[in-house]
């Protein structure tokens, strides 16, 4: 029960973000788009936070730039492009797929395939486990004799 209450309380907490009231756009739909874009953009000062979460002054400047572009009629990709033009692909928290980033995107899959291949080769080369061999009649007779001894 306590856990449930805690969960309910947690879900009530607003997501952490640093947008100040004065920055918000009057149009809620556009503000929502700005928030979506901000969550995708890395703050170049703090480098592991999005500009939506960061309280750095530069993050605020970039949030303002994004909102300006949206107000001016930019689409979401155009607004993101405006920031990329200034700060490079590095600001994208989700890096684009292009030749420079192939290693990043496909490297893990390549390693996985190599690993699986290695496991398959290893399993195939492993000698089959020895099969249990049936006892011969003579062995059975000896075994019976021994166990009978124990019972006495």
């Amino acid at each position: 029960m306590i856990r449930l209450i805690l969960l309910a309380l947690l879900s009530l907490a607003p997501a952490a973000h640093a947008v100040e009231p004065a920055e918000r756009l009057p149009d809620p739909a556009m503000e929502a788009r700005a928030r979506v874009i901000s969550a995708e953009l890395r703050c170049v000062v703090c480098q592991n936070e999005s500009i939506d979460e960061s309280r750095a002054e530069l993050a605020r400047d970039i949030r303002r730039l994004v909102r300006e572009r949206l107000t001016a009629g930019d689409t979401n990709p155009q607004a993101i492009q405006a920031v990329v033009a200034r700060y490079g692909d590095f600001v994208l928290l989700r890096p684009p797929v292009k030749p420079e980033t192939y290693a990043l995107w496909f490297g893990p899959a390549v390693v996985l395939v190599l690993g699986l291949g290695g496991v398959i080769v290893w399993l195939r080369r492993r000698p089959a486990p020895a099969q249990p061999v049936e006892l011969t009649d003579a062995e059975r007779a000896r075994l019976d004799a021994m166990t009978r001894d124990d019972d006495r």
Partner: protein
Amino acid sequence: MRRLIFLLPALLFLVVAGYFAYSLRPGHDPQLLPSALLDKEAPAFDIPALSGGGRFTLADLKGQPAVVNIFASWCAPCRIEHPLLMRLARVDGVRLFGIAYKDKPEASARFLAELGDPYRSVGVDLEGRTGLDFGVYGVPETYVLDRDGHIRARYVGALTPARIERDLMPLLRKLTAP
């Protein structure tokens, strides 16, 4: 031949160690970013000049290679690099300009009165808008522009004698050569 497989972990270790050695080499800061505007035209700007009441624009930089230093009176590393800028400005053929980033004009003026003014002209970027267009993410930053106004180098953080001698001056000489 089968034995060679035991070399694999050692090989992996060498690759990883090599990567770390490369990333940890002296003088390398993994947080430094290359400028996204390298070899592109510098962003247009038109901001008030710190003194004289005129404007400071991108057109002022063009014609000859230019060094643009983005500074602020509130920035400690700017004070540290300032003597280097004073010396750089005296070198023949160096055109050094300043942009005061998010700094009140009075404060910038006091900073330059106290430490000396190496700049041919200083623009006041009170809102940091020009800095944002340049992709500034920490002052001081220094940009080298060719005579057409294309950004050819960016130095983040305080300049050092080594950076000036080994990097900035050779580039500037190359750009100035006819």
